[in-house]
């Protein structure tokens, strides 16, 4: 039992519950529930966005990658940061200028509402639900190791808390929880990174030398190739990060919580600062873990493997740096990270159902506010319940495939459809549907035929599709279908859609004319 961790975690949970009660009193309208009443400033939203990205997967997972593969992790670190440049330079301001609550609003701006919204809602759900499930399963395992709680108890605790936050506090509570967690995580990461550099006399070269001397693979960790060596895999990983980030529905939703495009731009700029800084730290933390954890008998199982697996390397390192108290702090922060990220994902999935499918497709944009919010809350509740049940069933399974599917779909369905609808005047409804569904089908098919499902789960000897990541092929499929079915679309509808591009273009460039002071 890790008493420090449990006390600090309960402190965090109590604060978040107080925030949820406060937020629930201020959440009345749809704009409150989905977009925190557009009341969030650029700096806070930047922290919240950074918080969404700095999930347990980034903090513990990428540290673990540095710990076990060294330089190959640089590919993730660069890609994970560059994804935000795509959002800043190409997406953020236009998204805020054209949309209301979700990126589907942008796709449906001039294309036919029902079919494209249905597709982008499927795209959102196909990203949010697998990602959510992967986080829940990971959370259960992590909390088991960190706090000594039983797996199913941990999953239920996470599920109940996230359902409470989202149902009652909506986006306002979710944003504040994410903001607080981001500050805690940045603080914790800074202390670990600073501690490592202190032990290394602030000499990065010394850290590299020490890591090479300690690591079982020796100087191989300071060269690429431990994990990836073929170009197709590398480029797929790169594409998934660079363009998948801009297709994550829970991240895109945050651009609607600010009052205007200017604050949307400030949000990403701040987020890039925090994320880039954190990614710099992660490399130092990972190398630090190699030096101070990998040969330390305190953190080893009898067979010489790391206690709790490579994902625990950052947590073990925190004990080396700051003792039991700091270990407790980092464990509590890791738990808080999971809670904050699953809440954001749940909210975005619920919004895809209530705003995109119910209000716009089913009720054709004429839904009653209270019914729509009730649907959103019921959906949240059902998502909470079903992911808890599924996560308990999936105990001990390899859930990496779920995260793989989520990022592949974000990059090959959501991003291209949103990008083309913003920038390509000849893009039509037919092209959007053909491209979006082609990207979705290709992603799913190639993951199923690939090494993780075909070989590891279904037990075949050789994968039909040899690569782990489908992103390159799925993105190309989307773009090819979108291109061909748009340019050959000679319908009246297509003609009208192409003609209304200029109107959309103007609004995306200068924003709504009436609102501005």
């Amino acid at each position, binding site marked *: 039992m890790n008493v420090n961790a449990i006390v600090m975690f309960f402190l965090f949970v109590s604060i978040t519950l107080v925030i949820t009660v406060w937020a629930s009193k201020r959440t009345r309208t749809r704009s409150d529930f989905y977009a925190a009443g557009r009341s969030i400033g650029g700096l806070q939203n930047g922290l919240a966005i950074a918080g969404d990205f700095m999930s347990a997967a980034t903090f513990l997972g990428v540290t673990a990658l540095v710990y076990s593969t060294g330089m190959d992790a640089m590919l993730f670190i660069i890609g994970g940061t560059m994804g935000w440049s795509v959002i800043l330079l190409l997406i953020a301001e236009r998204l805020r200028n054209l949309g209301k609550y979700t990126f589907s609003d942008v796709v449906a701006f001039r294309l036919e509402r029902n079919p494209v919204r249905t597709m982008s809602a499927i795209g959102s759900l196909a990203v949010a639900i697998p990602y959510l499930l992967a986080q829940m399963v990971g959370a259960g395992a992590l909390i088991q190791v960190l706090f000594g709680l039983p797996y199913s108890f941990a999953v239920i605790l996470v599920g109940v808390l996230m359902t409470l936050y989202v149902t009652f506090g909506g986006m306002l509570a979710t944003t504040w929880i994410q903001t607080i967690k981001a500050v805690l995580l940045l603080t914790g990461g800074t202390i670990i990174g600073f501690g490592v550099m202190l032990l290394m006399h602030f000499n990065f070269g010394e850290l590299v030398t020490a890591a090479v001397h300690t690591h079982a693979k020796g100087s191989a960790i300071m060269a690429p190739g431990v994990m990836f060596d073929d170009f197709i895999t590398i480029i797929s990983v790169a594409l998934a990060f660079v363009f998948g980030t801009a297709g994550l529905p829970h991240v895109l939703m945050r651009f609607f919580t600010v009052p205007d495009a200017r604050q949307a731009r400030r949000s990403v700029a701040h987020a890039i600062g925090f994320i880039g800084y954190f990614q710099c730290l992660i490399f130092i933390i990972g190398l630090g873990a190699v030096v101070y954890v990998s040969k330390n008998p305190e953190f080893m199982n009898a067979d010489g493997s790391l206690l709790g697996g490579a994902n625990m390397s950052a947590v073990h390192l925190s004990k080396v740096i700051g003792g039991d108290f700091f270990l407790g702090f980092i464990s509590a922060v890791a738990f808080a990270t999971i809670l904050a990220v699953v809440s954001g994902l749940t909210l975005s999935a619920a919004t895809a159902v209530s705003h995109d499918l119910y209000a716009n497709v089913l009720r054709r944009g004429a839904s009653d506010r209270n019914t729509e919010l009730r649907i959103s809350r019921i959906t949240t509740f059902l998502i909470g319940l079903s992911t808890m049940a599924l996560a308990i069933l999936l105990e001990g399974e390899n859930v990496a495939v779920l995260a793989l599917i989520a990022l592949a779909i974000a990059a090959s369905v959501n991003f291209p459809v949103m990008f083309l609808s913003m920038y390509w005047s000849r893009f039509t409804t037919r092209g959007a549907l053909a491209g979006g569904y082609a990207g979705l089908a290709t992603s799913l098919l190639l993951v199923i035929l690939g090494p993780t499902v075909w070989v590891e789960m279904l037990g075949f000897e050789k994968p039909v599709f040899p690569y782990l990541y489908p992103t390159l092929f799925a993105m190309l499929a989307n773009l090819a279908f979108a291109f061909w079915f748009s340019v050959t679309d000679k319908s009246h509808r297509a003609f009208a859609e192409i003609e209304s591009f200029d109107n959309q273009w103007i609004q995306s460039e200068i924003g709504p*004319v009436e609102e501005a002071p």
Partner: protein
Amino acid sequence: MLSEADKRVLMNREFQKLVRVRRWISASFMLLLLGLYLLFSLLSAYAPQVLARPLLNGGTVPVGIALGYAILALIFILTLVYVWLANNVFEPLEKSVRRSVREGQER
């Protein structure tokens, strides 16, 4: 059908300048970053020994790590430049275009 107001915006000199400058900036920054990332990926796949070589003679930090941090630094710098341009160049143009649209509506 394109409305009269929209037509006026498309003909507006400032709007044209806004679109032209912003497109050039976004596209060139994006291509620069993606190009560097592609370079890193290509080197990882086909010339790992280049990335593994120490950056300085007798040093220990390899080129790959230095290049990675350099790309992160460039992302920071380009972000600052873009935000500066957006605040000082794009926004005044946007405001002025919006004003002229509103004046056009009143007339």
